[in-house]
């Protein structure tokens, strides 16, 4: 783990309401897909806590995809090339890339695309072809879809039907799992989507890994803030037991 003072080297707008911030420090942060970093700009005492982000890219520079939903993410989305970004990580437990010969099906909702694009690139580099199901509310909620299309079999869904299949990610997911049981599901997105992805996967007994979000302060397992109740009746901590969990650790199979 490292704490780096980095500078923003590039700001991209991959969709109207999303920013991709690229940053570079003295050394790279060697994160695996699904691992995350805690990020903060030089904005004084408020907001006081850093914010958690999955890494989209990691190498000589790193990058995060920011969706402004509140104060911290809005400050980050407004940052400019040259601004200082303090980044520490890598943190948490990422995806298990050992797919045991199963075909990876990646399921992303909105900003949940961040760790999954990184994961898809790793599979691609290893010569494994993935299916990438990517859902948004509208065609504006699909940042980085074109990058995905280059390296995976992209299936898009939008709730308004403006791009791809009309509806939600679970419809194509259920179809694919029905066709091929030698698969493995990797997902990240809003809670409701993760729950539905878990239901669909667990119903047919397909292994499924989910990346969760929870408000957190430390990112390193010390403050005990990011608790979620596991199916075994004990609290799991998103920052160090996760953020990636086996679906069955978090969600009961739907009956």
């Amino acid at each position: 783990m490292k704490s780096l003072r980095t500078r923003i080297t590039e700001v991209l707008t991959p969709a109207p309401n999303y920013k991709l911030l690229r940053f570079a420090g003295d050394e790279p942060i060697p994160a695996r897909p699904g691992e995350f970093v805690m990020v903060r700009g030089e904005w004084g005492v408020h907001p006081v806590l850093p914010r958690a982000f999955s890494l989209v890219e990691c190498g000589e520079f790193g990058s995060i995809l920011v969706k402004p939903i509140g104060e911290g993410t809005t400050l980050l989305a407004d940052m400019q090339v040259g601004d200082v970004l303090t980044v520490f990580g890598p943190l948490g437990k990422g995806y298990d890339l050992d797919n045991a010969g199963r075909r990876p099906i990646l399921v992303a909702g909105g900003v949940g695309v961040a760790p999954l694009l990184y994961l898809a690139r790793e599979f691609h580099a290893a010569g494994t072809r993935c299916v990438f199901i990517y859902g948004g509310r509208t065609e504006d909620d699909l940042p980085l879809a074109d990058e995905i299309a280059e390296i995976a079999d992209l299936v898009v869904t939008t709730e308004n039907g403006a791009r791809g299949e009309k509806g939600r990610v679970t419809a194509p997911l259920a179809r694919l799992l029905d066709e091929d049981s030698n698969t493995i599901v990797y997902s990240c997105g809003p809670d409701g989507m993760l729950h539905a992805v878990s239901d669909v996967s667990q119903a047919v007994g397909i292994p499924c890994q989910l990346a969760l979000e929870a408000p957190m302060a430390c990112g390193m397992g010390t403050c005990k803030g990011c608790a979620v109740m596991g199916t075994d009746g004990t609290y799991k901590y998103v920052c160090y037991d996760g953020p990636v969990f086996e679906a069955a650790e978090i969600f009961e199979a739907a009956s």
Partner: protein
Amino acid sequence: MSARLQAPLGALTLDNPYINASGTYGYAVEYAGFVDVARLGGVSVKGISLEPRPGNMPPRTAETAAGMLNSIGLANIGIEAFVRDTMPRLRELGVTVIANTFATSVEDFVELAKRFDGVEGIAALELNISCPNVHAGGMHFGVSGEAAGEVTSAVRAVTSLPLMVKLSPEAGDICEVARAVEAAGADVITMINTIRGMVIDVDRRRPMLGQKMGGMSGPALKPLAVRMLYEVYQQVSIPIIGMGGIGSLRDSLEFFMAGASAVQVGTANYAEPGISLRLADELDAWLAERDLVLTDIIGVAQDPA
């Protein structure tokens, strides 16, 4: 660390006056290899209870203007696992360990103190009689001089460790509580713990936190903490460790000048896990430039007697 940073706390002298506050640095082992934890003035570990505690219903944190609320609920591994599994590692790392303990009865505070006495590598015991996050317990000791004195003297009788007692800003008269713990044999006062606050999620029309209320910490707490320390300093003669919202050298100077012999840094660790070491270096430079030592500035903002 240079000698000018030495912080005398009665029988205990710290190499530098920046301690990481309980609940904000885990058991310190998490940061090893990343922060030079042996150089920290000390680490007050996450509050330890007799039995492990799972903690409160989430969400457990919410951010506020220049601060945050937490309702962690003393999630911790319990004294047995701490002494057996964590202490050997802390000794190996050379961390100055302050054992922050939490209980809901005098008997349990006494039992914790007995079990820490004689554990190698513990620099001091800190009684958390001020946790706002546990039902039926903890804070009621901290809001009355009589109850605070009772638990302090009971623990004093069974421990040979330097004894720190952590005060609550929720006390009606914090000076009365401070005098009571001094009279009962405390060696050091640490202050302040968090004060209860609430955030309402207006979309859900419910309190944001699972426990509804949570302890407020961070920069927003600082003026309250400095004022209380300034007042308590005038009423006791034992050393005081100040805390509440410290995030810069100047913040900590306020506490020293109000009368703190050392300080604890809490919430600021989340944004910068190595902040205490940076502040120690900055204080060293600040003192050197003025040809001062730390003890020269303690309490200098107090009115002349």
